C-alpha cells in the first residue's frame, strides 16, 4: 500500500525503510550465533572454518537442539517440562542394562524407550489436564519418578556398556560426502526431526492451536479448541523428543548416572535464546534450533578461551540473562 502512494523519487527511501524493517525483524539469535561463530573461527581456524570442524561441532549440538524442540512445544503451550533431563538419564542407564551387550537388542531397546516416552508424556499430560496440577509440579514429580526408576532398575550404577550400533546415532559420521566431507548421523536426525516438528508446529492446525492455547487459554477454549487433547499430545511430543535426544546423547556422552542432570534447564535456556516466551504463545522451531546451536557455541567459545568449567557456567548464566533482558527491553521500546 505504501509503495503505491510514494512517488518514484521516494522509492529509494522506501526501499531503505523496508530493508531496515526486514533487518530489525531478524530474531536476535541469528546475529548472535554468527558473531560467536566468527569469533570461534578466528580463534581456531581449523576447528571452525573447515567443513570437518563444523561437522564436529554439529555432532554434540544436534541432540541439544532435539531436546530444545521438544521443550519448546511445551513452553509455547504455557507449561514447563522439567522431566527432560531425567529422561536422558533414563535412556542411558536403562539401555546400559537392557542392551545386555548384545547389538541385536538395539532395535527392541529403542522401541521400548520410545514407548516409555509416550507413556511418560501421556501421564504428564493427563495429570496436568485432569488433576489440574501445574505442569511445573507434575513434571518435577515425574523427574524424580523417572530418575528413581532408572536408578532402581540398574541398581544405582550403569550395567555394562552401550553397543556400537546403538551409539552410532550420536557418534558416527556419514563419510566421504562431497563438499561436506562428512556429516554426523546426529545432524541428519536433527534435520529430519526439525522438519517434522516444523511441519507440525507451523503448518497444521494442531500447531496453531498450541500457540493459541499458550496465548490465551480461556479464549481458545471458548472458540472450540480441545485444550486437554492438545496438551496431552504436546507432552507426549516433548517426552518422545527427549527420548530421541537421549539416544543421540548416549552416543557421545559417557555412561554415568548424572548424564542428564540439568539438561532440562539447558533445553529451556536454548529455547529462551531462540526467542520462546515462558508463559506461552510464542515459538519457532528454526529459531530454537539455532538457540541450541548458539548455546553450544558459547560453551565451545569459553572452552576455546581456556576458561575452566566453573567460569563457563558463570558466563553462560550472564549471557542467558543478557539475551532475555535484550529481548524484553527491545519489545518494550517498540510499544
Amino acid at each position, binding site marked *: 500500500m505504501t509503495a503505491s502512494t510514494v512517488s518514484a523519487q521516494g522509492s529509494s527511501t522506501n526501499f531503505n525503510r523496508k530493508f531496515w524493517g526486514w533487518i530489525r525483524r531478524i530474531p536476535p539469535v541469528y546475529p548472535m550465533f554468527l558473531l560467536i561463530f566468527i569469533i570461534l573461527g578466528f580463534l581456531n581456524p581449523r576447528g571452525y572454518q573447515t567443513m570437518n570442524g563444523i561437522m564436529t561441532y554439529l555432532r554434540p549440538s544436534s541432540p541439544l537442539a532435539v531436546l530444545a524442540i521438544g521443550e519448546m512445544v511445551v513452553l509455547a*503451550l*504455557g*507449561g514447563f517440562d*522439567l522431566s527432560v533431563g531425567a529422561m536422558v538419564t533414563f535412556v542411558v542407564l536403562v539401555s546400559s542394562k537392557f542392551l545386555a551387550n548384545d547389538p541385536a537388542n538395539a532395535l527392541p531397546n529403542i522401541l521400548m524407550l520410545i514407548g516409555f516416552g509416550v507413556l511418560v508424556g501421556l501421564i504428564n499430560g493427563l*495429570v*496436568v*489436564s*485432569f*488433576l*489440574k*496440577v*501445574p*505442569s*511445573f*509440579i*507434575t513434571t*518435577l*514429580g*515425574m*523427574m*524424580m*519418578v523417572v*530418575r*528413581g*526408576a532408572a*536408578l*532402581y532398575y540398574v541398581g*544405582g550404577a550403569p550395567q555394562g556398556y552401550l553397543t556400537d550400533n546403538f551409539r552410532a546415532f550420536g557418534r558416527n559420521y556419514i563419510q566421504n560426502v562431497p563438499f561436506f566431507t562428512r556429516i554426523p548421523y546426529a545432524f541428519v536426525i536433527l534435520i529430519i526431526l526439525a522438519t517434522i516438528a516444523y511441519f507440525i508446529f507451523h503448518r497444521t492446525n494442531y500447531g496453531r492451536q498450541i500457540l493459541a492455547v499458550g496465548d490465551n*487459554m480461556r479464549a481458545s*477454549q471458548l472458540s472450540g479448541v480441545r*485444550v486437554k487433547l492438545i496438551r496431552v499430545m504436546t507432552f507426549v511430543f516433548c517426552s518422545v523428543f527427549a527420548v530421541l535426544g537421549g539416544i543421540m546423547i548416549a552416543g557421545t556422552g559417557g555412561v554415568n548416572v548424572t548424564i542428564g542432570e540439568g539438561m532440562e*534447564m539447558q533445553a*529451556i*535456556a536454548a529455547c*529462551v535464546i531462540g526467542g520462546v*516466551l*515462558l*508463559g*506461552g504463545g510464542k515459538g519457532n522451531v528454526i529459531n530454537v534450533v539455532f538457540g541450541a546451536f548458539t548455546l553450544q557455541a558459547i560453551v565451545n567459545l569459553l572452552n576455546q578461551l581456556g576458561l*575452566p*568449567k*566453573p*567460569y*563457563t*557456567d*558463570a*558466563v*553462560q*548464566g*550472564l549471557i*542467558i*540473562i543478557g539475551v*532475555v*533482558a535484550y529481548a*524484553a*527491553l527491545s519489545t*518494550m521500546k517498540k510499544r
Partner: protein
Amino acid sequence: MTTSLASENRLKRIFRSANIPPVYYFLIFVFLFSGILDQFLADGQIFSNPLIMLNIIVRSVALGIVAVGQTLVLIGASIDLSVAFTISITAVMSSYIMQGKTENVPVAIAGVFLIGIVIGLINGLIITKLRVNPFIATLGTGLIIKGIINASFSNYTGSVPQAFEYFGYGKIGPIPVSIIILFLVVIIGWFILARTKFGAHLYGVGGNSEVARLSGVRTDRVLIGAHVLCSVTAVLSGMFLVSLMRSGAPWVGPNGFYDLNSIAVAVIGGTSLSGGKGDVWGTLAGVLIFGILSTAFNQLGVNPYLKTVFQGLIIVLAVASYTIRSKKEAA
C-alpha cells in the same frame, strides 16, 4: 470474666486469621498412614518414640527456612531458582571466614548476610528493571554463583568453631535450637505476610501487578524486597547446614535440591505458582510432609532409589488433592 472472654475472642481471631490450610489434613493423613505402616512393617517407633517426632522436624529445618522465603517470592508471582547456590555460597563462605575460630563468627555472619542481600537485590533488579522472566533470571544468577563457588572452592573448606555448632546441635531444654529458629522464621514470615503493609502489597503484586501499580503500590520495590527476604532465608538455611556439617562444601545446596524442593513444598502448601495466593503455614505443613516421608522411608528401610520415586509421586498427589476440585485449567 470479661478479660478471659476477650482473650478467648482474640485467640479465636488469631486462629481464624491463621486460616488452617487444607494441606494439614493431608499432613495428618500422611503421618497416620506412615505411622500405621511403621507399626505393622517395622518397629513402630514413629508413634511410640517422641525423639522420632523431634527428628522429623529437625530434618525439615534446612528446607523449611528457605521454603518460607520461596513462599514470599512465589506469592509475588516470581520464583527463585538460585536458592540452592545461595545456600552453597553461604555454607562455603561462612566456614571459610570462620576457619574454626570463635572470634571470626560475627564477621562471617555479617559477611554471608551481606552476600545474601546482594544476591537478592541482583535477582530483584534483573527481574524488575531488566524485565527478565524470573525463571530465567534466577536460573542465570544461580549459574553465576555456581561458577564463582566452583572456581574458588572444590570441596570442604575451613571449619566452624564449636560455638557455632550450637545452631545445629544445641538444645534449649528438650527442644533443639534449630526447631526454635525454624518456627521463628515461620512466624516472622507469617507476620510479614499477614500483618504488614509490605505483605498486603506483595499479595497485590502477585495477584495483578498492573492493578497494584495503578493503585499506588511501588511494585518493583515490593518484588525486590521479597527477593532479598528469600535470599536471606537461603543464607539462614546455609548457616544451619554448615553448623551441622562443621565445614562447608560447594555441593551442599544443589545436592539437597533446595531450589526445586522449596518450590514443591510451597506449592504443596497451597501457594500458587501464578502468584497472589498462599501462606507460610501451608508451606510448613508441606515441609513436615517431606520430613515425615523421609523418616518413614528410613524406618521401613525403603530402597533409596524407590524413595525418590515415591517422593515424586507424593508431590504430585499432594498438589492434586486440592487442585482436582478447581475449575480452572492448569498450565
